[in-house]
């Protein structure tokens, strides 16, 4: 690793250099001392630094959380994602999951009964351009992520509107215990499938409602770092429903 020399000569045992809700940039010192931390932070000789542009939150003077404002989706086992079929192979499909890593969906993870893959025309099951809701079965950095659509609530997508946002903002769209996404679902009466990879499917009985939901989601993405978001979204949804 690189040898690192500190420029500052602070001797205090625990200090925080930033305020809660502050926007920080890579290399910005956040705190000094034995803090609990979560998010893209690195530590050198007890000094905590941010790795990305993000919003920092300080809890009880003990825990520092950094929420990135931008970033790619890194696959994690168990994540539900929305993928796009981009290639058909002999034993399965290659799926784009909006990540630096392309995923693989084998035939065995699509059909419940054992089948002879060679006898199948895979394009009849899933064709290039099809969208699927899938779950990541496995991911190690040395191999491409493996998907399945065999569980319930997974499978091919046949209707609805797809919206793509920066993956790091997905938790904001979901909200605390689902509060934000439920607000959208209930106010507009739509179904929403959230992919951890930044892709969200909105299904409603009216394409207009789907469009409004998409606008609300985009608004959350843009204004995630500005306090008072929930109220603004509430206001926005009521306005579009009433017709401006």
């Amino acid at each position, binding site marked *: 690793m690189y040898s690192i020399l500190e420029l500052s000569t602070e001797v205090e045992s625990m200090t925080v250099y930033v305020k809660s809700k502050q926007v920080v940039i*890579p290399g910005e010192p956040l705190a000094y001392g034995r803090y609990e931390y979560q998010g893209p932070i690195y530590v050198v000789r007890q000094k905590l630094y941010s790795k990305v542009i993000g919003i920092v939150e300080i809890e009880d003077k003990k825990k520092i959380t950094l929420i990135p404002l931008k970033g790619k989706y890194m696959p994690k086992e168990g994540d539900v994602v929305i993928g796009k079929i981009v290639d058909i192979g002999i034993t399965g499909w290659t799926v784009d999951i909006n990540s630096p890593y392309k995923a693989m969906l084998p035939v065995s993870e699509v059909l419940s009964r054992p089948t002879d893959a060679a006898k199948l025309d895979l394009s009849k099951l899933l064709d290039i351009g099809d969208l699927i809701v899938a779950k990541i079965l496995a991911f190690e950095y040395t191999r491409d992520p493996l998907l399945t659509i065999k569980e319930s609530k997974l499978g091919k997508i046949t209707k609805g509107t797809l919206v793509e946002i920066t993956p790091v903002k997905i938790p904001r769209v979901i909200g605390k215990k689902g509060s934000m996404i439920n607000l959208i679902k209930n106010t507009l009466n739509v179904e929403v499938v959230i992919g951890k990879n930044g892709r969200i499917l909105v299904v409603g009985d009216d394409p207009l409602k789907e469009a409004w939901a998409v606008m609300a989601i985009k608004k959350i993405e843009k204004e995630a770092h500005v306090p008072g978001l929930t109220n603004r979204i509430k206001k926005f949804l009521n306005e579009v429903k009433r017709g401006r």
Partner: protein
Amino acid sequence: MTGKALVKLLDENGLRTDGRKLNEIRPIKIQVGLLKNADGSAYIELGRNKIIVAVYGPREAHPRHVVIPDRAIVRCRYHMAPFSVEERKSPGFSRREIELSKVIREALEPAIFIEEFPRTAIDIFIEVLEADGGTRTASITAASVALADAGIPLRDLVAAVAVGKIEGELAIDLNGLEDQYGEGDMPVAMMPSLGQITLLQADGRFSGEEFEKGLKMAIEAIKKIYKIQKEALKRKYIEISKEVLEGE
């Protein structure tokens, strides 16, 4: 570097051809996230230099066989547009652009947490639209902002400046004329929070003492440029906040 005193670079008051003092950097403007397709982007104006940088990645690499199993590869392409210089430059890649692509990549790579993205590529594309001395350091300054804009985890931003020698005096941030007719040019890039230097080159002639003094001058200027980079990155989000809160 022609090295001959054909042009008077300092006047009787010790001011330079563009009116600057020896330790003054040119005006800098940085815009962040101006390109829609790139994952991260930045545009910089340093004096008359105009440079745009786009960052893609981490992403799948093509061809696939270039990837490394335990980290991302960083690729950098520094290119000057044919209309960027006084005499039209041919569109292909000159040897200078090949070397600068390499040293710029080596200046930025130490800042990137490449081990977090095995088997992927991070691509940095630099296009110089107008050149007037110091394009490589301005490119590094803009590229590191573009990397941050892409959400790529970094140890620190990298800021860069060139220090040189004109008529025997050390001067910071040489413009095109000073670069061509001066007696030495030393580009420096550094991660300011960590005090780590990632680029250092020189041509011309510097005594051991001038080297030390020049390096110190460069480090001071780099800290100023770092502030400008930080401000540019935060500005985008602060503007959105203002817009939103004022609209209420």
